């Protein structure tokens, strides 16, 4: 079940003996924890405090067509599907890294592409969700406390997914053209750290925002 191989260049000439790029990237991820921590804290602090609809889980509010809604705005089946896709893209990402580290250029490119595709499907689901909220429920950034904090939190996450897709497609292209040999696989590992972090944030957002009323 386990194989031994180099994750990074054999000799790293730094005082810690660790690659500075990877350490710096972990520092960046740490700072992102604080960013998302503050956004999640804001959402939770304002949860259930909105004076008017739209509401996340409960009915009894009026949508833009004047209809009294008997349920909240969330579409749990759609969000569960997009969560499944994002988790699968994380699996694709680790498989891509494993192949790049072994010098499998074609397989590495394929799994990087599939990772980006998973991100694109997730993003498409989020765009559909946001569009439905605006067009059907009349829920915009300024509608109420819930709408403001929800769009800010999930919008920031979506922006991170967008950056990740561009990052992964660039790496897929470089891998395909043979510019990322096994000794440069740290580039893919760092992209993987970013992508898994985006996944981890969604692992927190999905239950806190969507599943716990």
């Amino acid at each position, binding site marked *: *079940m*386990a*194989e*031994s*191989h*180099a*994750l*990074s260049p*054999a000799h790293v000439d730094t005082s*810690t*003996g*660790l690659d500075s790029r*990877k*350490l710096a990237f*972990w*520092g960046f*991820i*740490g*700072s992102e*924890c*604080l960013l*998302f*921590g*503050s956004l*999640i*804290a*804001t959402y*939770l*602090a*304002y949860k259930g*405090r909105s*004076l008017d609809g739209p509401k996340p889980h409960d009915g009894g509010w009026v949508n833009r067509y004047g209809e009294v809604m008997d349920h909240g705005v969330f579409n*749990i089946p759609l969000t*569960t599907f997009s*969560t*499944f896709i994002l*988790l*699968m893209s*994380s*699996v694709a990402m*680790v*498989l891509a890294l*494993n192949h790049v*580290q072994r010098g499998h250029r074609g397989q590495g490119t394929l799994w990087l592409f599939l990772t980006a595709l998973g991100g694109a499907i997730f993003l498409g689901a989020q765009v559909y969700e946001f569009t439905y909220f605006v067009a059907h429920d009349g829920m915009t950034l300024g509608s109420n*406390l819930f709408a403001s904090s929800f769009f800010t939190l999930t919008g920031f996450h979506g922006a991170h997914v967008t950056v990740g897709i561009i990052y992964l497609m660039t790496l897929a292209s470089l891998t395909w053209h043979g510019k990322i040999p096994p000794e440069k696989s740290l580039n893919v*590992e760092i992209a*993987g*750290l970013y992508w*898994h*972090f985006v*996944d*981890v944030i969604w*692992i*927190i957002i*999905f*239950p*806190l925002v969507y*599943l*716990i*009323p």
Partner: protein
Amino acid sequence: MTSETREVAHNQHTHPTNRFYVVIGAILIALTVLEVLGYLGEVNGTLPSGAAAAIILVLSAAKFLLVVMFYMHLKFDHPLFTGTFVFPALLGMLVIGSLVLLFGPIHGTSDAIGDDVREERRAAEVRAATPAADRR
């Protein structure tokens, strides 16, 4: 797991295979399904609200740990990477906990956010319900 996670040499790791990663992925999917079942249990009334929330949070924490340990390789990597991530992550959790407590049980500020608006609405409703002659 010990043979799989043992660090072999400087900058070289015993690293899981594709099959291991796929198994972790399957566990993540199974935990997500359980989360959604917990949500449905609460909606249908088969699970008490607090119990469902607790179950969902525990499952979410398990998923978080699985991804961070195995997919982000913190289980196999140098402890300095773990420290660089864990310290701000704990700080973030502290921010979340503090703000929720401050706005909720401790100070209750957010309860008062809409008080003036509610009061104004109640007064408007009373004015609307009361005939003009009575108001005079």
